[in-house]
């Protein structure tokens, strides 16, 4: 495990040690994976989004104004990338991606409090939210970030984010109630 700080690793990469970037990838990849999967609906799409985001992060590394906050800076790139993909796909995307490769990459269902069927319903409902509301819900309730952290990542103000989160929760609740009463 590399003990250098983010700022030190960034400096090393900018100094020409390209391989040092792998340290940052290893450090942050998992933190963004869940967010990307929730936003895009499949590990396959999340993989593509994160490849692009990390590569963008490498190219633009000299523009990271505060390398000690590299993680937050890259999170912003990841969020932008996910938003871009969702917008491009359009709201017609409802289906769960079920091609073979995607199934292979699915995490195993968790024998948790809520059964797998319910979880799929929740994920399906989540994907019916527009990108902004989906992102707000995921950052707040799945990633459990503070509103200040969310503001840094999304570029939106705290009160705007609170409104988005509230709308997202209301919409999700309506969608899931429809499902339950169907």
């Amino acid at each position, binding site marked *: 495990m590399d003990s250098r700080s983010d700022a030190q690793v960034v400096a090393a990469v900018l100094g020409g040690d390209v*391989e040092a970037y792998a340290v940052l990838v290893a450090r942050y990849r998992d933190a963004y994976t869940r967010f990307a999967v929730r936003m895009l609906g499949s590990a396959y799409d999340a*993989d593509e989004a994160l490849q692009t985001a990390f590569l963008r992060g490498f190219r633009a590394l000299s523009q990271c104004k505060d390398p000690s906050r590299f993680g937050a800076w890259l999170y912003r790139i990841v969020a932008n990338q996910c938003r871009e993909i969702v917008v491009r796909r359009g709201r017609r995307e409802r289906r769960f991606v079920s091609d073979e490769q995607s199934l292979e990459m699915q995490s195993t269902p968790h024998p948790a409090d809520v059964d797998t069927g319910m979880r799929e319903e929740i994920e399906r409902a989540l994907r019916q939210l527009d990108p902004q509301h989906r992102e707000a819900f995921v950052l707040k*309730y799945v990633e459990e970030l503070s509103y200040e952290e969310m503001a840094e990542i999304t570029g939106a103000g705290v009160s705007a984010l609170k409104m988005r989160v509230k709308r997202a929760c209301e919409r999700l609740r309506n969608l899931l109630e429809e499902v339950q009463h169907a």
Partner: protein
Amino acid sequence: MREHVSDDELQRWSERVAIPLRAQERLAPDFESRLMTAVRENASRPQSLDIPRSMDIPRRAGLRGRWFAPLAGVAVAASLVGAVIVGYAIALRGVHTAAREVASVAPATPAHDTVYITRFVLVAPRAASVSVVGDFNAWDTTATRLANVRDGVWSVSLPLTPGRHEYAFVIDGRRWTVDPAAPATHDDEFGVRSSVITVGPSST
């Protein structure tokens, strides 16, 4: 039927619903090796800035009437693995120019119609095409293509009015590249940076 729920209740409900969504997700085990392959390949290419796809190439106006000595310097920026980028712009004037390839422009016209032949050069051995874009050609990537004058050395000369111009090179129609030898602007509102050249007669 949807009854009204309090904010507290909505929050509690949301927390419960989010629990299964907090399950950890995993990417394919070769994610890192694929990424580092792309990173190494990127590092071995000429220095470039990434243009986000959703952006238009920016258009900026603005000539300023300051007069500075023409840029004549050459800077070499070595990239990480052997490919060399050199960019420089030379402002040449009238009969004093020694460059054979460049036609001189006699300033017989009034001062504000004077133009200076300016040569843009970029060394980009792996490029298939290079354009220069700037405020003088409405940032049109198809307007001013450089010619490959010898191995990987791309060049074009064009007349510029005196004053400050912003420009950049575009490699293969899509890779925005600042001139490593020239001063750069700050990021504009899209986070994009350009190079600056100031054209004018020799004076300090």
